[in-house]
């Protein structure tokens, strides 16, 4: 399988990349890990005339604490996040999410910035960044702006990125003590896209009352969705079995699944949204209390 012809650029600075974007507009496409873009080009589902390869720009691969946040360079490979000490200590749900993406070779190439910019509703990162209430930094020739993940993910394969903007950094607030997160995923076989997946992040106070809840859904709508009703069913309450059950039912209501000929009907996915939210919450609560 051979893609259509294109012209290739490998800028070494963001500034240079931005000016190429400005010059070629919507005929140009940014290449990060290429784990979605290259298959799209090979299958000729999309044939950009200009490819701007970001991989020669240095300084975009890192995971580090900055103030009260953990910041991740857009070109950081999934594998680097999976094995990041900083992520493991500060927000281990990031490591767990990374471990569920594709297979080892895909995780060696694929990047968090590329994945989020692609906004595939079956993509894993969107749900987890939603659960953590993270944001992304976007850079254009004239300015830099920060956008909340909920506003960044607009629709299937559509984001808030303008033609001359590049996603440069993902930022997530570091959860306080007594927090727990989990990314739970149902897949047909190892390495497949999610049938459904749920990202859960919670915090408890000393008495076990939930002070924070973030729940993101994968493959349960036109994009990664926030399960707002489920979150509201948790905050301010002790996370008993009954409360978890109620929140899981609410997550099923929050979901807007579309039938997928390969991975199940909308009804099935909605059922699984409930099952996986429950499993995710149980695991997150256990972890918040110090379990594994």
């Amino acid at each position, binding site marked *: 399988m051979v893609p259509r012809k294109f012209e*290739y650029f490998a800028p070494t600075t963001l500034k240079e990349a931005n000016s190429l974007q400005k010059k070629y507009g919507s005929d140009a496409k940014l290449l990060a890990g*290429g*784990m979605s873009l*290259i298959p799209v080009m*090979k299958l000729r589902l999309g044939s950009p005339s200009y490819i701007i390869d970001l991989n020669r720009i240095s300084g975009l691969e890192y995971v580090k604490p900055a103030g009260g946040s953990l910041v991740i360079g857009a070109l950081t*490979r999934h594998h680097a996040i999976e094995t990041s000490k900083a992520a493991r200590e500060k927000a281990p749900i990031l490591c767990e999410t990374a471990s569920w993406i594709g297979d*080892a*070779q895909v995780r*060696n*190439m694929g990047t968090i910035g590329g994945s989020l910019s692609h906004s595939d509703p079956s993509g894993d990162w969107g749900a987890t960044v939603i659960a953590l209430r993270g944001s992304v930094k976007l850079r254009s020739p004239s300015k830099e702006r920060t956008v909340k993940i909920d506003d960044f993910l607009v629709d299937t394969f559509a984001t808030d990125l303008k033609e001359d903007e590049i996603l440069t950094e993902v930022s997530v607030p570091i959860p306080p003590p007594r927090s727990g997160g989990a990314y739970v995923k149902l897949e047909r076989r190892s390495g497949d896209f999610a049938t459904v997946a749920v990202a859960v992040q919670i915090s408890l106070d000393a008495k076990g009352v939930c002070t924070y809840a973030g729940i993101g859904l994968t493959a349960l709508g036109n994009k990664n969705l926030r399960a707002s009703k489920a979150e509201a069913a948790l905050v301010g309450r002790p996370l008993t079995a009954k409360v978890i059950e109620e929140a899981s039912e609410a997550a099923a209501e929050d979901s807007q699944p579309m039938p997928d000929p390969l991975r199940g009907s909308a009804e099935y996915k909605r059922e699984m949204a409930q099952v996986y939210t429950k499993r995710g919450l149980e695991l997150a609560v256990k972890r918040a209390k110090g379990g594994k």
Partner: protein
Amino acid sequence: MAKASKNKQAELVPVKVKINGVDYSRDVEPRLLLVHFIRDVAELTGTHVGCETSNCGACTVVLNGRSVKSCTMFAVQADGAKIETIEGLAKNGELHPIQNAFWENHGLQCGFCTPGMIMQAYWFLKENPNPTDDQIRMALAGNLCRCTGYQNIVKSVKAAAKEMRS
């Protein structure tokens, strides 16, 4: 037509890589996939083209120290890189311990997936020299074998790990 062919010439980009310690350079179309550079330009046909859709892992090579599927990468992206392929593993006529372990443990039948399996195992055992069976299975999840049922492949990787640690 003249214009088209002129454009075609202008489109070529230089690619220079080191594969198993040997330099290869050629001006290629940007759309040339790395696996085709390895097979057709460098004439190293040990790296196989399987599914062409980044599912099967037969095209796995190690690029600057990390395993990648060379069918899902443009050759031009690898410009300046060091690449290791199956041909680079045996030294002085001696099989690499992973190759030897596949031989000893019957880790293959038809052999089509084997170069990819071995290159993936080669990368993985550097990451994790003492893996559990489950970790081996996870590491090889992106490599499909239609013959063996994987049991002997896992056994081979485990045996290779033991040999390489000693």
